[in-house]
Protein backbone atom coordinates (compact mmCIF):
# COMPACT_ATOMS: atom_id res chain seq x y z
CA UNK A 1 0.00 0.00 0.00
CA UNK A 2 2.33 2.68 1.28
CA UNK A 3 5.15 1.45 -0.85
CA UNK A 4 3.61 2.15 -4.22
CA UNK A 5 2.13 5.45 -3.16
CA UNK A 6 5.25 6.22 -1.27
CA UNK A 7 7.38 5.57 -4.32
CA UNK A 8 5.22 7.75 -6.49
CA UNK A 9 5.18 10.45 -3.89
CA UNK A 10 8.92 10.24 -3.40
CA UNK A 11 9.37 10.49 -7.10
CA UNK A 12 7.13 13.49 -7.40
CA UNK A 13 8.39 15.05 -4.24
CA UNK A 14 11.96 14.40 -5.07
CA UNK A 15 11.74 15.71 -8.61
CA UNK A 16 9.13 18.37 -8.74
CA UNK A 17 7.26 17.74 -5.54
CA UNK A 18 8.51 20.76 -3.73
CA UNK A 19 7.49 23.07 -6.52
CA UNK A 20 4.29 21.22 -6.96
CA UNK A 21 3.41 21.69 -3.32
CA UNK A 22 4.33 25.33 -3.53
CA UNK A 23 2.19 25.78 -6.58
CA UNK A 24 -0.74 24.11 -4.86
CA UNK A 25 -0.30 26.39 -1.89
CA UNK A 26 -0.18 29.40 -4.14
CA UNK A 27 -3.48 28.52 -5.76
CA UNK A 28 -4.82 27.74 -2.34
CA UNK A 29 -3.76 31.19 -1.25
CA UNK A 30 -5.52 32.89 -4.11
CA UNK A 31 -8.66 30.91 -3.44
CA UNK A 32 -8.41 32.04 0.15
CA UNK A 33 -8.56 35.65 -1.01
CA UNK A 34 -11.63 34.95 -3.09
CA UNK A 35 -13.16 33.07 -0.21
CA UNK A 36 -12.60 35.90 2.21
CA UNK A 37 -14.21 38.38 -0.17
CA UNK A 38 -17.31 36.27 -0.68
CA UNK A 39 -17.76 35.49 2.98
CA UNK A 40 -16.41 38.53 4.80
CA UNK A 41 -16.83 41.06 2.01
CA UNK A 42 -18.86 43.24 4.35
CA UNK A 43 -15.66 44.18 6.12
CA UNK A 44 -14.40 45.99 3.05
CA UNK A 45 -17.82 47.13 1.89
CA UNK A 46 -18.59 44.33 -0.58
CA UNK A 47 -21.39 42.31 0.99
CA UNK A 48 -21.87 38.98 -0.74
CA UNK A 49 -22.89 36.30 1.70
CA UNK A 50 -26.07 37.09 3.68
CA UNK A 51 -24.79 38.69 6.89
CA UNK A 52 -26.41 36.13 9.17
CA UNK A 53 -24.28 33.38 7.66
CA UNK A 54 -21.27 35.59 7.31
CA UNK A 55 -21.29 36.11 11.08
CA UNK A 56 -21.45 32.39 11.57
CA UNK A 57 -18.11 31.99 9.82
CA UNK A 58 -16.52 35.01 11.46
CA UNK A 59 -15.04 33.27 14.51
CA UNK A 60 -12.94 31.01 12.30
CA UNK A 61 -11.32 33.81 10.33
CA UNK A 62 -10.61 36.22 13.17
CA UNK A 63 -6.81 35.72 12.94
CA UNK A 64 -6.83 36.24 9.18
CA UNK A 65 -8.88 39.38 9.14
CA UNK A 66 -6.08 41.84 9.92
CA UNK A 67 -3.68 40.63 7.24
CA UNK A 68 -6.41 40.17 4.71
CA UNK A 69 -7.75 43.66 5.19
CA UNK A 70 -4.27 45.14 4.89
CA UNK A 71 -3.79 43.15 1.73
CA UNK A 72 -7.03 44.47 0.24
CA UNK A 73 -6.18 48.03 1.20
CA UNK A 74 -2.77 47.71 -0.49
CA UNK A 75 -4.46 46.60 -3.67
CA UNK A 76 -6.90 49.45 -3.44
CA UNK A 77 -4.08 51.99 -3.07
CA UNK A 78 -2.51 50.58 -6.15
CA UNK A 79 -5.66 51.05 -8.13
CA UNK A 80 -6.28 54.47 -6.75
CA UNK A 81 -2.87 55.83 -7.84
CA UNK A 82 -3.30 58.67 -10.34
CA UNK A 83 -1.51 56.82 -13.11
CA UNK A 84 -4.17 54.14 -12.93
CA UNK A 85 -7.05 56.52 -12.88
CA UNK A 86 -8.68 56.13 -16.24
CA UNK A 87 -11.22 58.81 -15.60
CA UNK A 88 -8.51 61.45 -15.51
CA UNK A 89 -7.09 60.51 -18.87
Amino acid sequence: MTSRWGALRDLLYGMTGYEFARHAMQIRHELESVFMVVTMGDLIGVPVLPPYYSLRLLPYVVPQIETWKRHMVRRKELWEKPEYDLLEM
Partner: protein
Amino acid sequence: MSLRRVFESQPHRRYIMFGGKGGLGKTTLSATAAFWLAGQGKRVLIFSVDPQASLSDIFQRDIFGKGPVPIVQNLWAEEVDADRRIREYQDEIRKKIRDMYGLDRVPEEIDNYIQAASAEPAMEESAIFDAVVDIIVKGDYDYYIYDLVPLGHALYYLSMAKVYDEWITKITKLREDMRQYDQMAATMRREKVLEEDQILNELIYIRDRINASSRILTDRAQTAFFFVVVPEEMIILDTKRAAELFARFDVPIAGYVVNRVLPRELIQASIPEYLRNRITMQDRYLKEITATFGSQILAYVPEMERDVTGLPMIERLAERLFGEASGPEGPEPAGGRGAP
Protein backbone atom coordinates in the same frame (compact mmCIF):
# COMPACT_ATOMS: atom_id res chain seq x y z
CA MET B 1 -62.39 19.67 -4.91
CA SER B 2 -62.78 21.39 -1.54
CA LEU B 3 -60.12 22.60 0.84
CA ARG B 4 -61.04 19.78 3.13
CA ARG B 5 -60.62 17.22 0.36
CA VAL B 6 -57.17 18.60 -0.43
CA PHE B 7 -56.09 18.03 3.18
CA GLU B 8 -57.74 14.63 3.38
CA SER B 9 -56.61 13.26 0.06
CA GLN B 10 -53.07 14.69 0.13
CA PRO B 11 -51.87 14.09 3.68
CA HIS B 12 -48.21 14.40 2.70
CA ARG B 13 -48.65 18.05 1.97
CA ARG B 14 -47.66 19.08 5.49
CA TYR B 15 -46.34 22.55 4.71
CA ILE B 16 -49.20 24.93 4.21
CA MET B 17 -49.21 28.56 3.10
CA PHE B 18 -52.00 30.99 2.39
CA GLY B 19 -50.75 33.80 0.20
CA GLY B 20 -52.28 36.90 -1.26
CA LYS B 21 -52.33 40.64 -1.17
CA GLY B 22 -52.39 42.57 2.10
CA GLY B 23 -55.44 42.22 4.29
CA LEU B 24 -57.34 39.60 2.28
CA GLY B 25 -57.43 37.06 5.10
CA LYS B 26 -54.18 35.08 5.01
CA THR B 27 -53.78 35.07 8.78
CA THR B 28 -57.47 34.37 9.32
CA LEU B 29 -57.48 31.39 6.99
CA SER B 30 -54.14 30.09 8.28
CA ALA B 31 -55.45 30.15 11.85
CA THR B 32 -58.73 28.55 10.80
CA ALA B 33 -57.00 25.74 8.90
CA ALA B 34 -54.58 25.22 11.78
CA PHE B 35 -57.46 25.03 14.25
CA TRP B 36 -59.36 22.53 12.13
CA LEU B 37 -56.34 20.30 11.49
CA ALA B 38 -55.55 20.26 15.22
CA GLY B 39 -59.15 19.20 15.83
CA GLN B 40 -58.56 16.31 13.43
CA GLY B 41 -55.84 15.09 15.78
CA LYS B 42 -52.85 16.46 13.85
CA ARG B 43 -50.04 18.21 15.65
CA VAL B 44 -49.91 21.64 14.09
CA LEU B 45 -47.50 24.56 14.32
CA ILE B 46 -48.67 27.86 12.90
CA PHE B 47 -45.86 30.38 12.67
CA SER B 48 -45.14 33.85 11.43
CA VAL B 49 -42.21 36.21 11.00
CA ASP B 50 -44.48 39.23 10.82
CA PRO B 51 -43.35 41.94 13.26
CA GLN B 52 -47.02 43.03 13.39
CA ALA B 53 -47.70 40.03 15.64
CA SER B 54 -50.93 39.17 13.87
CA LEU B 55 -51.11 35.70 15.42
CA SER B 56 -51.11 37.31 18.85
CA ASP B 57 -54.08 39.36 17.63
CA ILE B 58 -56.11 36.53 16.22
CA PHE B 59 -55.51 34.13 19.11
CA GLN B 60 -55.80 37.00 21.60
CA ARG B 61 -52.65 35.93 23.38
CA ASP B 62 -49.24 37.53 23.58
CA ILE B 63 -47.04 34.98 21.89
CA PHE B 64 -44.51 37.27 20.20
CA GLY B 65 -40.94 36.03 20.58
CA LYS B 66 -41.95 33.28 23.02
CA GLY B 67 -41.25 30.23 20.86
CA PRO B 68 -44.05 27.73 20.14
CA VAL B 69 -46.94 28.53 22.51
CA PRO B 70 -49.73 25.96 23.03
CA ILE B 71 -53.12 27.33 21.95
CA VAL B 72 -55.48 24.37 22.12
CA GLN B 73 -54.76 20.66 22.14
CA ASN B 74 -52.43 19.78 19.23
CA LEU B 75 -52.04 23.40 18.18
CA TRP B 76 -48.99 25.60 18.78
CA ALA B 77 -48.40 29.11 17.52
CA GLU B 78 -45.06 30.87 17.15
CA GLU B 79 -44.13 34.41 16.27
CA VAL B 80 -40.49 35.00 15.51
CA ASP B 81 -38.97 38.11 17.06
CA ALA B 82 -36.23 38.87 14.54
CA ASP B 83 -34.55 41.65 16.55
CA ARG B 84 -34.24 39.51 19.59
CA ARG B 85 -32.95 36.63 17.52
CA ILE B 86 -30.23 38.86 16.09
CA ARG B 87 -29.22 40.11 19.53
CA GLU B 88 -28.93 36.58 20.90
CA TYR B 89 -27.05 35.50 17.83
CA GLN B 90 -24.52 38.32 18.19
CA ASP B 91 -23.86 37.20 21.74
CA GLU B 92 -23.39 33.62 20.62
CA ILE B 93 -20.85 34.71 18.03
CA ARG B 94 -18.98 36.84 20.56
CA LYS B 95 -18.89 33.99 23.02
CA LYS B 96 -17.65 31.62 20.37
CA ILE B 97 -14.80 33.97 19.50
CA ARG B 98 -13.83 34.40 23.14
CA ASP B 99 -13.91 30.66 23.74
CA MET B 100 -12.03 29.77 20.58
CA TYR B 101 -9.14 32.13 21.26
CA GLY B 102 -9.27 32.28 25.04
CA LEU B 103 -9.98 36.00 25.08
CA ASP B 104 -11.61 38.07 27.79
CA ARG B 105 -13.23 40.27 25.26
CA VAL B 106 -13.74 40.34 21.53
CA PRO B 107 -11.20 42.54 19.69
CA GLU B 108 -12.64 45.95 19.00
CA GLU B 109 -12.43 45.75 15.25
CA ILE B 110 -14.22 42.43 15.18
CA ASP B 111 -16.87 43.68 17.55
CA ASN B 112 -17.44 46.75 15.41
CA TYR B 113 -17.94 44.48 12.48
CA ILE B 114 -20.45 42.36 14.35
CA GLN B 115 -22.40 45.47 15.25
CA ALA B 116 -22.25 47.00 11.79
CA ALA B 117 -23.32 43.77 10.13
CA SER B 118 -26.24 43.46 12.53
CA ALA B 119 -27.50 46.96 11.83
CA GLU B 120 -28.00 46.26 8.14
CA PRO B 121 -31.47 45.52 6.79
CA ALA B 122 -29.96 42.48 5.09
CA MET B 123 -29.22 41.10 8.54
CA GLU B 124 -32.86 41.14 9.51
CA GLU B 125 -33.82 39.49 6.25
CA SER B 126 -31.26 36.76 6.55
CA ALA B 127 -32.02 36.20 10.23
CA ILE B 128 -35.71 35.81 9.41
CA PHE B 129 -34.83 33.53 6.56
CA ASP B 130 -32.78 31.37 8.87
CA ALA B 131 -35.52 31.31 11.48
CA VAL B 132 -37.89 29.86 8.89
CA VAL B 133 -35.29 27.35 7.75
CA ASP B 134 -34.86 26.37 11.38
CA ILE B 135 -38.57 25.79 11.91
CA ILE B 136 -39.09 23.92 8.66
CA VAL B 137 -36.16 21.52 8.78
CA LYS B 138 -36.92 20.32 12.28
CA GLY B 139 -40.00 18.59 10.98
CA ASP B 140 -41.41 17.37 14.29
CA TYR B 141 -44.98 18.58 13.76
CA ASP B 142 -47.51 16.93 11.45
CA TYR B 143 -48.34 20.28 9.88
CA TYR B 144 -46.51 23.55 9.47
CA ILE B 145 -48.64 26.51 8.59
CA TYR B 146 -46.58 29.48 7.54
CA ASP B 147 -48.59 32.65 7.99
CA LEU B 148 -47.14 34.81 5.25
CA VAL B 149 -46.85 38.55 4.95
CA PRO B 150 -48.34 40.09 1.77
CA LEU B 151 -47.50 38.80 -1.69
CA GLY B 152 -44.52 40.92 -2.58
CA HIS B 153 -42.76 39.85 0.56
CA ALA B 154 -43.70 36.22 0.20
CA LEU B 155 -42.38 36.15 -3.30
CA TYR B 156 -39.28 37.95 -2.14
CA TYR B 157 -38.75 35.37 0.52
CA LEU B 158 -39.14 32.47 -1.85
CA SER B 159 -36.84 34.01 -4.42
CA MET B 160 -34.35 34.60 -1.65
CA ALA B 161 -34.39 30.88 -0.91
CA LYS B 162 -33.32 30.26 -4.48
CA VAL B 163 -30.56 32.85 -4.39
CA TYR B 164 -29.24 31.72 -1.01
CA ASP B 165 -29.34 28.18 -2.19
CA GLU B 166 -27.20 28.96 -5.23
CA TRP B 167 -24.78 31.10 -3.25
CA ILE B 168 -24.18 28.71 -0.45
CA THR B 169 -23.69 25.87 -2.91
CA LYS B 170 -21.05 27.86 -4.82
CA ILE B 171 -19.24 29.02 -1.72
CA THR B 172 -19.17 25.52 -0.31
CA LYS B 173 -17.75 24.28 -3.59
CA LEU B 174 -15.06 26.95 -3.44
CA ARG B 175 -14.14 25.86 0.05
CA GLU B 176 -14.00 22.25 -1.06
CA ASP B 177 -11.61 23.23 -3.85
CA MET B 178 -9.40 24.97 -1.31
CA ARG B 179 -9.45 21.85 0.74
CA GLN B 180 -8.24 19.82 -2.21
CA TYR B 181 -5.22 22.06 -2.62
CA ASP B 182 -4.50 21.73 1.08
CA GLN B 183 -4.73 18.00 0.70
CA MET B 184 -2.40 18.03 -2.26
CA ALA B 185 0.18 20.14 -0.50
CA ALA B 186 -0.07 18.02 2.63
CA THR B 187 0.47 14.84 0.67
CA MET B 188 3.50 16.31 -1.01
CA ARG B 189 4.93 17.29 2.31
CA ARG B 190 4.20 13.81 3.65
CA GLU B 191 1.87 15.19 6.24
CA LYS B 192 -0.54 12.41 6.93
CA VAL B 193 -3.44 14.05 8.66
CA LEU B 194 -4.99 17.23 7.48
CA GLU B 195 -6.69 19.19 10.18
CA GLU B 196 -10.44 19.24 9.84
CA ASP B 197 -11.71 22.29 8.05
CA GLN B 198 -14.22 23.78 10.45
CA ILE B 199 -15.29 26.43 7.99
CA LEU B 200 -16.11 23.77 5.45
CA ASN B 201 -18.13 21.94 8.08
CA GLU B 202 -20.07 25.09 8.89
CA LEU B 203 -20.72 25.75 5.22
CA ILE B 204 -21.94 22.24 4.64
CA TYR B 205 -24.23 22.56 7.64
CA ILE B 206 -25.67 25.84 6.34
CA ARG B 207 -25.93 24.55 2.79
CA ASP B 208 -27.72 21.37 3.73
CA ARG B 209 -30.29 23.25 5.78
CA ILE B 210 -30.96 25.83 3.10
CA ASN B 211 -31.13 23.11 0.45
CA ALA B 212 -33.53 21.08 2.54
CA SER B 213 -35.89 23.96 3.29
CA SER B 214 -36.04 25.24 -0.26
CA ARG B 215 -36.54 21.71 -1.52
CA ILE B 216 -39.49 21.29 0.84
CA LEU B 217 -41.11 24.60 -0.02
CA THR B 218 -41.01 23.97 -3.75
CA ASP B 219 -42.12 20.35 -3.59
CA ARG B 220 -45.76 19.78 -4.56
CA ALA B 221 -45.76 16.49 -2.73
CA GLN B 222 -45.01 18.21 0.58
CA THR B 223 -46.15 21.79 0.28
CA ALA B 224 -49.47 23.37 -0.60
CA PHE B 225 -49.74 27.05 -1.38
CA PHE B 226 -53.27 28.50 -1.43
CA PHE B 227 -54.04 31.85 -2.94
CA VAL B 228 -56.56 33.98 -1.09
CA VAL B 229 -58.73 36.23 -3.23
CA VAL B 230 -61.76 38.38 -2.52
CA PRO B 231 -64.49 39.40 -4.95
CA GLU B 232 -63.20 42.88 -5.60
CA GLU B 233 -61.85 44.85 -8.49
CA MET B 234 -58.15 44.45 -9.37
CA ILE B 235 -57.66 41.44 -7.11
CA ILE B 236 -58.23 38.98 -9.93
CA LEU B 237 -55.71 40.56 -12.26
CA ASP B 238 -53.14 40.98 -9.48
CA THR B 239 -53.61 37.39 -8.40
CA LYS B 240 -53.18 36.09 -11.94
CA ARG B 241 -49.94 38.01 -12.28
CA ALA B 242 -48.69 36.82 -8.92
CA ALA B 243 -49.57 33.22 -9.78
CA GLU B 244 -47.48 33.42 -12.93
CA LEU B 245 -44.53 34.80 -10.99
CA PHE B 246 -44.91 32.17 -8.30
CA ALA B 247 -44.97 29.45 -10.90
CA ARG B 248 -41.56 30.64 -12.03
CA PHE B 249 -40.21 30.07 -8.56
CA ASP B 250 -41.74 26.61 -8.46
CA VAL B 251 -44.19 27.53 -5.75
CA PRO B 252 -46.57 24.57 -5.56
CA ILE B 253 -49.90 26.32 -5.98
CA ALA B 254 -52.68 24.07 -4.71
CA GLY B 255 -55.73 26.22 -5.41
CA TYR B 256 -57.67 29.37 -4.63
CA VAL B 257 -59.84 30.34 -1.70
CA VAL B 258 -62.38 33.11 -2.15
CA ASN B 259 -62.78 35.01 1.10
CA ARG B 260 -65.33 37.50 2.38
CA VAL B 261 -68.27 36.45 0.26
CA LEU B 262 -71.42 38.22 1.46
CA PRO B 263 -74.36 35.87 2.10
CA ARG B 264 -76.63 36.22 -0.89
CA GLU B 265 -79.82 35.53 1.10
CA LEU B 266 -79.39 39.01 2.51
CA ILE B 267 -80.61 40.47 -0.73
CA GLN B 268 -84.16 39.29 0.11
CA ALA B 269 -84.05 41.01 3.47
CA SER B 270 -84.42 44.69 4.00
CA ILE B 271 -80.83 45.80 3.96
CA PRO B 272 -79.26 49.19 3.39
CA GLU B 273 -78.75 50.25 -0.16
CA TYR B 274 -74.95 50.20 0.02
CA LEU B 275 -74.98 46.56 1.13
CA ARG B 276 -77.33 45.64 -1.70
CA ASN B 277 -74.91 47.32 -4.09
CA ARG B 278 -71.95 45.49 -2.63
CA ILE B 279 -73.71 42.16 -3.10
CA THR B 280 -74.47 42.98 -6.71
CA MET B 281 -70.88 44.03 -7.24
CA GLN B 282 -69.57 40.87 -5.62
CA ASP B 283 -71.79 38.85 -7.93
CA ARG B 284 -70.03 40.34 -10.89
CA TYR B 285 -66.55 39.69 -9.53
CA LEU B 286 -67.48 36.20 -8.39
CA LYS B 287 -68.47 35.36 -11.95
CA GLU B 288 -65.12 36.65 -13.11
CA ILE B 289 -63.27 34.68 -10.44
CA THR B 290 -65.07 31.45 -11.37
CA ALA B 291 -64.39 32.07 -15.04
CA THR B 292 -60.70 32.68 -14.34
CA PHE B 293 -59.84 30.04 -11.75
CA GLY B 294 -62.62 27.53 -12.37
CA SER B 295 -62.06 24.16 -10.77
CA GLN B 296 -59.03 25.43 -8.87
CA ILE B 297 -61.35 27.22 -6.47
CA LEU B 298 -61.47 25.23 -3.26
CA ALA B 299 -63.75 27.28 -1.05
CA TYR B 300 -65.98 30.32 -0.77
CA VAL B 301 -65.61 31.76 2.70
CA PRO B 302 -68.47 33.84 4.03
CA GLU B 303 -68.05 37.33 5.36
CA MET B 304 -68.56 37.06 9.12
CA GLU B 305 -70.51 39.67 11.03
CA ARG B 306 -67.32 40.98 12.62
CA ASP B 307 -63.52 40.58 12.56
CA VAL B 308 -62.32 37.06 13.16
CA THR B 309 -60.51 37.07 16.51
CA GLY B 310 -60.58 34.64 19.40
CA LEU B 311 -61.09 30.90 19.41
CA PRO B 312 -64.93 30.76 19.34
CA MET B 313 -64.95 32.88 16.20
CA ILE B 314 -62.19 30.82 14.58
CA GLU B 315 -64.13 27.70 15.42
CA ARG B 316 -67.25 29.02 13.76
CA LEU B 317 -65.34 29.93 10.66
CA ALA B 318 -63.71 26.49 10.64
CA GLU B 319 -67.17 24.91 10.65
CA ARG B 320 -68.17 26.98 7.66
CA LEU B 321 -64.92 26.31 5.85
CA PHE B 322 -64.48 22.61 6.60
CA GLY B 323 -67.98 21.47 7.51
CA GLU B 324 -69.77 18.86 5.40
CA ALA B 325 -71.45 21.47 3.27
CA SER B 326 -68.26 23.37 2.64
CA GLY B 327 -66.38 23.73 -0.59
CA PRO B 328 -67.48 24.83 -4.00
CA GLU B 329 -69.52 21.64 -4.52
CA GLY B 330 -71.36 22.28 -1.28
CA PRO B 331 -75.00 23.37 -1.53
CA GLU B 332 -74.48 26.88 -0.26
CA PRO B 333 -72.10 28.54 -2.64
CA ALA B 334 -72.71 26.26 -5.62
CA GLY B 335 -76.47 26.67 -5.40
CA GLY B 336 -76.10 30.31 -4.61
CA ARG B 337 -73.38 32.44 -5.93
CA GLY B 338 -70.15 32.20 -7.73
CA ALA B 339 -70.75 28.91 -9.47
CA PRO B 340 -70.58 29.01 -13.24
